[in-house]
Every structure is written in C-alpha cells, then in structure tokens.
C-alpha cells in the first residue's frame, strides 16, 4: 500500500516548520515518528498535500527535570519514556503507559508528541497525562502558549492545537512526597489499542487519608475522561481497599460509551470500574512508600 502523492519538506528547526505551516496551512500535516499518520495515509484515510517532517529537528527529544516539572520533548519515543530512570522514579504510571503501547518496534519509532497531537481515542498517553495533570507547550509564529490537559482533547482525533502550531513539549508536575501514580489497561488483543484504560495520581496526607486524586479513563468517550465521581469519593477518605472499591464503582458515572464489535458499552463501563480500582490501589500503595 502506498500513500497518495504528497510534497515533502524536512524541517531543520521549529522555526522552519512554522514557516512551512504558515505557507501551506491546512494542506500540510506535521510528521514526527509517523506511526499514526503513515498508516492512515497508506489506507488513504488521510491524504495531505504536504508533509512537514519534524522528525530530525534537534532539541525536541529527551527528558529532563525543569524545576518542579518533568519536561519531555515532543519527539521522545515511547521506548525512551518507558525506560527513562527519571520517569520511572517520579511517574511510574507514565512509564507503564509508554511500555504497553503497540510493540517493541512501534515504541522505538512512535513519539509522545505525535500521540498527543493525533488524539486517537484508543491511545494510552492522553489518559495517563490527564491523570498526571500534564500540560503541553505549543509554539506558533506569534509565540508559545501552555495548554492544560483538561480541555486539550476536544473530540476524536481533535485537540485545541491550531493548524499553525507545533507541539514541542509535554510537561508533567513532579509529584510531591506521599504521591503515587499508576496506569492499567485492557488492550484490544489484536491491535493493542485501548479498549478501556485508567490512570491515577493519588496523594496521601500525614494521617494516610487521600489528600487529592486525579483519575482518568480511556475508551469511554472520544478522548480521555476525568472520573470525577471517583475523585470526589476518594478525597479525605482513608485509602482502604473498601473505600477505593466504593469510589471505583462510580468510575463510569456520566459516561456514555458506544457498543463496538469487541466490547459492549455495558462491558466497557464495567471494565472502567475494575481498571480504576486497580490503578487507584496501586497508586495509593506507591504513595505510601514515598
């Protein structure tokens, strides 16, 4: 299978990519690792007139601590996120999400920025990044702006990124002591995409109660959803198995998933309660070790 013909530019800098985006507007698509875009182009689901390849733009790959934030360059591949000591130490839930995307070869090529900007409803990163209260740095000719994850994913394959913007960095707050993260996924057995998944960020206070909770679910909507009823039910409560199970039972509240060939809506809502319980339990356990 071949993509339809297109014009190709290899940008050497973000500035050059922005110039090309400004010139070609909505006729152009950015290409990073290409592990979502190229399959879509081969199936002729996408036929952009121009590709602007940012895959070799320097300084967009790598993971660093920037003050109280973990900053991940948009071109960092999944395998690097999964194996990063910094990520594993501070945000193990993020490393877990990276390690269950696709397969070895896909993780060597697919990028975190590409996954976020593509906004596939079956993707892993959007879910865990919502739980982690991440934000995204987007650069346009008029400057750079920081976009919080809440409100970033607006629909299937749609984010608030503008056509003239380049996503350059993913930023996740470094969790304070007494905080744990986790990610649990039920993958589609053939494709590996998310059927349902859950990410959790749980903080304990000095007495062991839940000080704060952010829980996100994938697979129930066009993008990640906050499990707000679960978060509210956890806050202030002792993080016991019983309380976690009761809170997780409300995980799918307010969601309206659709039936598909693999799983019914009812089954997805049930799996959301199971995966949220596991993610919150594990995040709580990790919170007590730090």
């Amino acid at each position: 299978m071949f993509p339809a013909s297109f014009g190709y530019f290899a940008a050497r800098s973000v500035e050059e990519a922005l110039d090309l985006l400004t010139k070609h507007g909505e006729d152009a698509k950015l290409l990073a690792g290409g592990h979502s875009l190229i399959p879509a182009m081969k199936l002729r689901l996408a036929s952009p007139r121009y590709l602007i390849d940012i895959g070799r733009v320097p300084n967009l790959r790598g993971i660093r601590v920037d003050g109280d934030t973990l900053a991940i360059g948009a071109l960092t591949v999944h395998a690097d996120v999964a194996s990063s000591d910094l990520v594993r130490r501070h945000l193990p839930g993020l490393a877990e999400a990276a390690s269950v995307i696709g397969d070895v070869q896909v993780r060597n090529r697919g990028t975190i920025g590409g996954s976020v900007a593509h906004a596939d409803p079956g993707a892993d990163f959007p879910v865990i990044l919502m739980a982690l209260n991440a934000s995204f740095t987007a650069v346009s000719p008029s400057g750079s702006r920081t976009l919080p994850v809440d409100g970033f994913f607006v629909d299937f394959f749609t984010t608030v990124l503008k056509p003239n913007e380049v996503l350059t960095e993913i930023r996740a707050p470094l969790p304070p002591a007494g905080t744990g993260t986790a990610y649990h996924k039920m993958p589609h057995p053939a494709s590996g995409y998310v059927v349902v998944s859950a990410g959790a960020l749980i903080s304990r206070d000095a007495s062991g109660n839940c000080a704060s909770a952010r829980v996100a679910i994938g697979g129930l909507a066009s993008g990640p959803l906050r499990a707000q009823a679960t978060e509210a039910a956890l806050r202030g409560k002792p993080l016991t198995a019983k309380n976690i199970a009761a809170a997780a039972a409300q995980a799918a509240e307010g969601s309206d998933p659709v039936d598909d060939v693999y799983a019914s809506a009812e089954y997805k809502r049930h799996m959301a309660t199971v995966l949220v319980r596991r993610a919150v339990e594990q995040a709580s356990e990790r919170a007590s070790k730090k």
Partner: protein
Amino acid sequence: MSDEGIKIGVTVNGVKREAAVEPRELLVYFLREQLGLTGTHVGCDTSQCGACTIHLNGCAVKSCTILAVQADGAEIVTIEGLARGDALHPMQEGFREKHGLQCGYCTPGMIMTAVYLLKTNPNPTEDEIKRALEGNLCRCTGYVNIVEAIKWTAQKIGGDRVSR
C-alpha cells in the same frame, strides 16, 4: 516537491548508498526494489506483523511504516547485514540449530527483533523473550522453537552484547 524525487543518503549494512526517492516510497520498498535487499519481507503492510523489521540507527523498527525520506542520513542494518561471509550471525545459527521456523516468511523479522533484544537485554527470561516478540507474527510455528532459538543464542554468546 519534485517529480524526479528527493535525494537521500543512507548507510545500509555498512555501505553508503545514495538514491532519489519519491516522497511516498516506503523504506521497505526502497530496500527491496531499489537496493535489491529482498531479505526484508512485506507481510501485513500495516505495522502489525514485523516481517519488515530492520535496524534503523540501532533500533528495531518496522520499515513498512517509515518513508524512505525519513531515513535520510540513517544507519540501516537488514538481515543481509548479519552474516560475515559464510559465518552466520549467532542468532541465525540459533534459528537453524533449534529450527525456529517453518515456512520462513517471518524469519528475517524475527531474527532482527531477536538480535535487538539481546543488544538491549543480553540475558532475557523466557517471558521477556515472548514480550519482545509481540510485534512479530508467525502463522506456522506456535513460537516454541523461535523462543528456544533465542534462548540458545543468548546462552551461546554468554551475555556478551551482540554487536550487530
């Protein structure tokens, strides 16, 4: 954008190659049809089966999901680059020794993934071997002898990092 193609330079199995490619040309077809390296196979052509696995700058990747233009400047190793003359690479020996194949179609990709595994994890457990192969499908063997072949090779090279 040009009709005559875009010039790229790649190093394939240690040899520098230059060529003009159409932007939409996939790396696997560039390797097979322009360079004649038909050991890299096209299986599913949808990034699932791993028959097209090669090493790009040292990492196992699926060459059906990469444009040849994206590989400009890269170091590539294909299955043809593993043996040294008549001396098989230890992983090829392992697949022969343990009969890690039946029809052979998936074998080049299996071997490239397996070589990458031992580069990153010289002493994998059986479970780690199976996980490493999640992106390589075999429709004949049930994987038993493939896993045995990789174990045999890991043991034979005794935890030494595989160099190529």
